[in-house]
């Protein structure tokens, strides 16, 4: 779809309005990095637009709509709308808690809806200039929404998010310039048809991948996403798990056919797997639920990048499946944590001990969400299964390293998800029945819809693959090697997965056990505390001189072994090293 020159002018004007605003932000906050990055863009963008680009340069088509864009649009629009509905209930409680005199909700929802529009524009753009506008629009929204509560911490983290994602913006400008000079085009589709062996086409692709990495908070830029967790939960759910960070992975998946078989592809694959493993390991040490979810998000995005880098039809299928299912499950988990946060006013996992007894509905939904991220027969695990099989089939010696990183990361993620699940469940035996909590309509209805979606789409993953993902993969240009989805199974040349029989098995056991097992009151006996229990449900035991002592149970976080202090220095160093290596190799080869 091509749009006329008038629209192009509007895009340009908006570009400069945005840059002016960023300049203002940089000046007001006296932030060197922001000022520097804006200056780079303010210099090169007009130079490119008005001096280098010939007048009347047309990019056709402006908007390119294929099944991949449609998939992303569905994710953005459906999940995004649900999160906005959730935010209605959430923000009301949020502002009541903060005892705000004047509501800021109108700004909040303005930016949320603007964001949905910008994301949709981003996934449909074919013209790099338009892509740049929508990309920077999402950066703006991200900055404003992180800053929403205007606390000093929020402002600092918003500024950090701004400059780190602006690095991506600068990269896009550079990519535009190189793309024009080396390939003579600003259209993504034309850039892809140049073929990876054409000289210097890899450089703009590499720069665009770099932009994707910053947007998706990969190492070494993960700190902006971790810091962004101070924002209200709908922001974390929408921007920082379901959608905005998906812009980065979307771009790389879109570009993947263009760098198939090159050194860029291999580096992206290894880098993504590396991020997946280290974030899973560091997540074990996290005590804050939102930070844990943030690390998990970064890791899963890394896995999507890895699969895009592997660049076989099976891998691309797995990456798109992971995009879909991760968006649903992670969005759900963030919304659950937000709801829990508004019940107990804490995001610490230790504060959530035994939450099933106090707020059963949201806690069981959270547990279901955790299971949907980790275990079969849910979509995220099926995507991981497909991805692992695709990585094994990667025709390169690097497949060994990639497979190792994925497997180690996968084992580490079992640990941190199960730890959190365990804390939620840990309760002393009790004969009192647990009553469901008071449920806010907007918040809880969205939670129910999302968990139902996760379950239904996971059981029906084969039709989803057949109807959405396989067409998307073949439209990207990959022939063959797709999943055969007969009988709602997933069959590839390498392996076989039966989602719905396993789902029926698990569902039958869970429902059957829940319905038919009814422990009677007299069957409930105390937990074993060496015979020193005070009473059945009292968390106390008698210790020295028969004094009643509080029972304290805690989690293993093992910060000395898995903590950020120990891992960050060399993880960040490795990340920077890989980025440098990426550009060196692309330029040299």
């Amino acid at each position: 779809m091509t749009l006329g020159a008038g629209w192009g002018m509007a895009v340009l004007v908006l570009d400069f309005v945005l840059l002016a605003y960023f300049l203002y932000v940089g000046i007001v906050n006296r932030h060197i990095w922001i000022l520097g990055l804006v200056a780079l863009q303010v210099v090169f963008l007009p130079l490119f637009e008005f001096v280098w680009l010939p007048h009347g340069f047309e990019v056709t088509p402006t908007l390119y709509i294929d099944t991949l864009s449609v998939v992303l649009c569905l994710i953005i629009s459906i999940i995004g709308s649900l999160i906005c509905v959730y935010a209605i209930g959430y923000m009301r409680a949020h502002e009541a808690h903060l005892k705000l005199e004047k509501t800021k909700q109108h700004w909040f929802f303005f930016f949320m809806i603007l964001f949905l529009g910008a994301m949709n524009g981003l996934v449909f753009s074919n013209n790099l200039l338009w892509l740049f506008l929508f990309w920077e629009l999402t950066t703006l929204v991200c900055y404003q929404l992180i800053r929403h509560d205007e606390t000093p911490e929020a402002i600092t983290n918003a500024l950090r998010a701004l400059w780190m994602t602006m690095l991506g913006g600068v990269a896009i400008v550079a990519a535009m310039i190189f793309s024009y000079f080396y390939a003579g085009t600003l259209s993504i589709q034309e850039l892809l048809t140049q073929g990876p062996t054409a000289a210097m086409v890899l450089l703009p692709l590499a720069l665009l991948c770099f932009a994707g990495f910053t947007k998706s908070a990969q190492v070494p830029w993960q700190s902006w996403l971790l810091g962004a967790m101070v924002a209200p939960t709908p922001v974390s759910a929408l921007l920082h798990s379901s959608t905005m960070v998906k812009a980065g992975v979307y771009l790389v998946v879109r570009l993947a056919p263009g760098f198939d078989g090159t050194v860029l592809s291999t580096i992206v694959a290894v880098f993504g797997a590396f991020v997946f493993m280290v974030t899973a390991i560091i997540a074990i040490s996290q005590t804050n639920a939102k930070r844990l979810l943030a690390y998990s998000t970064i890791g899963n995005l890394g896995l999507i990048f890895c699969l895009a880098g592997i660049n076989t039809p099976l891998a691309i299928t797995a990456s798109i499946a992971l995009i879909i299912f991760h968006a649903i499950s992670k969005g759900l988990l963030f919304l659950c944590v937000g709801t829990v946060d508004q019940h107990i006013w804490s995001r610490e996992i230790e504060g959530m001990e035994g939450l099933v007894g106090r707020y059963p509905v949201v806690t069981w939904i959270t547990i279901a969400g955790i299971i949907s991220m980790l275990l079969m027969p849910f979509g995220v695990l099926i995507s991981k299964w497909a991805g692992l099989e695709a990585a094994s089939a990667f025709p390169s010696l690097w497949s060994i390293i990639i497979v190792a990183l994925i497997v180690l990361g996968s084992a580490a993620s079992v640990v941190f998800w199960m730890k959190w699940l365990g804390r939620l469940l840990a309760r002393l035996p009790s004969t009192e029945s647990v009553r469901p909590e008071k449920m806010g309509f907007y918040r809880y209805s969205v939670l129910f819809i999302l968990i139902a979606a996760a379950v239904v789409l996971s059981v029906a993953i084969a039709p989803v693959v057949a109807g959405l993902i396989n067409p998307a993969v073949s439209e990207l240009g990959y022939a063959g090697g797709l999943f055969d989805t007969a009988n709602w199974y997933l069959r590839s040349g390498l392996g076989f997965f039966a989602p719905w029989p396993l789902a029926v098995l698990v569902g039958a056991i869970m429902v059957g056990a829940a319905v038919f097992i009814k422990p009677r009151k007299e069957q409930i006996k105390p937990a074993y505390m060496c015979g020193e229990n005070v009473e059945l449900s009292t968390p106390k035991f008698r210790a020295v001189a028969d004094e009643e002592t509080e029972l304290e149970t805690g989690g293993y976080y093992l910060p000395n072994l898995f903590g950020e202090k120990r891992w960050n220095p060399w993880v960040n160093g490795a990340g920077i090293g890989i980025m440098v290596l990426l550009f060196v190799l692309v330029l040299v080869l």
Partner: protein
Amino acid sequence: MGLISASRVKSPWILHYDCGGCNGCDIEILACLTPLYDIERFGMLNMGNPKHADVLLVTGPANYRNRRVLKNLYEQMPAPKLVIAIGTCACTGGVFHNCPNILGGIDKVIPVDVYIPGCAVRPEAIIDGVVLGLGKLAALGK
């Protein structure tokens, strides 16, 4: 139910609790686990967990403090269960029976099925006593 009550006799798992005796009887109980006497050949395993145990072996006399713990452990054991008082102190209070803090034998706190006197009890006597109790365990289940 013949299979289950036969299995009860063949697989009695032990919980060993010392109420505060001199440890003489405890050492003799642990001696039963050693290769010389090897009570595992009867299927007896020393589980440290009342929830897994069938037979509660108690040594030492009951006093005001440990009666609470003894009762707690006894109640955490699932039926059918057996209580065996090992040593004179557990049977009647033994040498300590007149002390101000001592209630007497453990039958002041929980029902006892088999009394094995001795100071300290010989491992052979312990094995004899437990085997005697097993017959009672099988009958309990019916």
